[in-house]
């Protein structure tokens, strides 16, 4: 149960990803606007909801309890689903999960798949896996549909096309309309664009022979997969095609409907500032012979991919993440660089913690170091009280311990701390710096510097070390003379 997971990664190195992001002014403007709006909406919804905070605290408790009890809940969930006509699978790795879904599709002779938005399927790269087998996959979440047309990956956990403005969307839809033989959207008005997508997707829903969903929650006692959307596309994906496959991380398990009651509000409240998402889709079994609801065949793929190895570690609370995106919206670094610069499907504060944790730092190990100023905004925003800043520091420590940091940098910190751990060393280093800084001084200011400090001077100046530090001044004027008034 404790295997390391695998995640897709952008092959470009960090510098390249970062510089591309910082140079993309359209993306930065759009991401800045979207994150700011969602961040404010979250604050506003709490103000108008007296029990919002106590409900949130209760939901954290329910989620933590479920994680502590994961093994038992997993067994109960699988039993319940199978009792109601579904089949369950436990996928230890991403590759296992893709293989399971592909086998289901190939066995049933599936040609066309419609999908809801799902980070789990992004994580295992399900779409390329199916497409390689000649299966057509259509994303039906509006944001996902947009980025699928653009051949891109989601830039935000909750709002996958948050980096695109409406002009860009219109252009994408125009060429999409040509391919589909449809009337293209006549303007970049969001209503017009949405109407186009609605009509376009309707054909796909009716023609698909398999639906694939993720899952926001798994209710163990009734064996239910619960999906929340603001577009209703999950209703169609789970009811139009005859076969339904749900791919869901094992950490989504909950005990019962009592636990779901407050938790189901959290993604909407904290992600977009709504009391509840517009649509709640619940699948609790296959369609009975005399019934009208549910798919004919239902398969639930439960994904581990590095999750259970976090159980009973200091990082266990990471499994409480409900993918609301509140930490992304609050994060100043995310607002500047957007999601793609992270190079992982999981971006923002949760991404820089979860990517290295699921993969045991085997991919993108730079993330905890390069994408966080340690401002703690994510900690305040996270509705699940995940200790994101604490984990980021701990992962930085982990990197030092595993020698994933540059040796020169390690030596600098070691020398620095050992010097400054005594007053004599501190004073000595000040004298040394005073001597050295004459080489970096221009017009009274430091304009460049050696070693670690070099980075600072790329874009900023610094005053030189004072002729007389406070400590030196104190020793000269005050020490041993009692505490008379300092005057000017």
């Amino acid at each position, binding site marked *: 149960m404790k295997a390391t997971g695998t995640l897709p990664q952008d092959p470009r190195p960090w510098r390249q990803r*970062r*510089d591309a992001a910082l140079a993309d002014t359209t993306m930065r403007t759009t991401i800045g606007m979207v994150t700011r709006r969602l961040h404010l909406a979250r604050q506003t919804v709490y103000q108008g909801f007296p029990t919002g905070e106590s409900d949130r605290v209760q939901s954290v408790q329910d989620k933590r309890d479920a994680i502590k009890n994961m093994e038992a809940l997993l067994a109960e969930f699988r039993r319940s689903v199978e009792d109601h006509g579904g089949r369950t699978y436990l996928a230890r790795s991403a590759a296992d999960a893709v293989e399971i879904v592909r086998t289901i599709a190939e066995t049933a002779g599936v040609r066309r798949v419609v999908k809801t938005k799902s980070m789990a399927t992004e994580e295992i790269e399900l779409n390329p896996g199916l497409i390689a087998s000649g299966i057509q996959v259509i994303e039906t979440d509006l944001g996902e549909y947009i980025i699928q047309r653009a051949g891109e990956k989601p830039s935000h956990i909750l709002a996958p096309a948050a980096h695109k403005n409406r002009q860009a969307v219109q252009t994408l839809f125009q060429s999409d309309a040509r391919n589909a033989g449809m009337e293209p959207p006549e303007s970049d008005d969001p209503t017009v664009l949405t109407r186009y997508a609605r009509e376009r997707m309707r054909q796909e829903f009716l023609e698909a022979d398999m639906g694939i969903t993720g899952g926001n929650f798994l209710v163990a006692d009734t064996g239910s997969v619960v999906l929340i959307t603001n577009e209703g596309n999950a209703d169609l994906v789970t009811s139009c095609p005859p076969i339904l496959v749900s791919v869901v991380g094992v950490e989504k398990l909950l005990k019962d409907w009592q636990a779901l009651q407050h938790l189901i509000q959290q993604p909407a409240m904290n992600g977009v500032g709504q009391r509840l998402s517009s649509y709640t889709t619940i699948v609790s079994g296959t369609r009975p012979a005399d019934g009208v609801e549910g798919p004919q065949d239902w398969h639930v793929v439960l994904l581990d991919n590095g999750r259970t190895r976090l159980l009973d570690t200091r990082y266990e609370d990471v499994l409480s993440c409900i993918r609301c995106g509140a930490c992304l919206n609050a994060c*100043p*670094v995310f*607002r*500047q*660089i957007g999601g793609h610069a992270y190079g992982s499907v999981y971006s923002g504060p949760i991404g820089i913690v979860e990517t290295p944790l699921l993969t045991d730092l085997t991919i993108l190990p730079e993330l905890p*170091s*390069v994408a*966080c*100023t*340690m*401002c*703690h*905004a994510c900690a*305040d925003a996270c509705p699940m009280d995940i200790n994101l800043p604490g984990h980021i*520091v701990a*992962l*930085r*420590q*982990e*990197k*030092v311990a595993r020698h994933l*940091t540059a040796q020169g940098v*390690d030596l600098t*910190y*070691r020398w*620095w*701390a*050992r010097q*400054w*751990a*005594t*007053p004599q060393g*501190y004073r000595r280093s000040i004298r040394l710096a005073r001597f050295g800084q004459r080489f970096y001084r221009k*017009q*009274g*200011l430091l304009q460049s510097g050696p070693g*670690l*400090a*070099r*980075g*600072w001077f790329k*874009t*900023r*100046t*610094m*005053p030189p*070390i*004072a002729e007389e*530090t*406070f*400590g030196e*001044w*104190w*020793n000269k004027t*005050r020490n041993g003379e009692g*505490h008379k008034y*300092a*005057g000017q």
Partner: protein
Amino acid sequence: MEAVSLFVTCLVDMFRPEAGRAALRVIERRGGQVNFPVDQTCCGQFSYNAGYQHEAALLARHWIEAFEATRDPIVALSGSCAAMVVHIYPELLKEDIEAQGGDERDAARWQARALAVGQRVRELSQWLLHADGSPSSAQSPPNGDAPSLIYHLGCHMRRVLRATTEAPSILAQSGVPVHEPADDDQCCGFGGTYSMTEPMVSTALADAKWQCIQEKAKEVSAVGLTSADLGCLLHLEGRAVRQGTPFPCLHLAEVLDRRDQGRPIGENLPLRGLS
């Protein structure tokens, strides 16, 4: 007379000692009897945030030893460094000793020492707000239609120390109108050595912060920027100077000291970097 120990921080000590002397005068005018533990160096936050736990612990142990000589309140000239001592030290020291294979009782003992010293720490505005008596030798005439300042609340003071209202209250009591810019909850990009290891992102954040500061300054005719954290100020000031758009940046203590002396806030504001 309340005796206090002054924790100037390494940045004030080295780069803005005048802010340390200003704080000294401000505290003394309010009846504080200031002791400066001369062995103090740095709280270790730079190392801690960068993932060098053991290095941070070395500095933390030294800091505690330097401040344990008295039982007086410790007045810190940085919200961020105060937060480090109060909220990070206890766990840091315990974990470091455990990680180094040290004795469990030793770990518990250091944790207890950290908690005890942490209870004495107040950031300057926190101490001032609860200090008895008004400034005895201060003049602080009403600022009236005097120009205002932009106030930048550092992230650790806001979210770790949770001291969000004290500095604006103290400044208001001194007759200095302060305004917070739009997106005031967004980091300025300093982040300790993050500013050095990731300068491009750090600078993008500084530029976003300056844009909000300048817009607000224009709106309210503010003449300068103040903060209780010199790290943020040096980073923002250094960026503005490099851009050729300097703007006065004063530590909270420097502002209060000016007001104590009855000097209007806009008078001869230092534009560092234009010498």
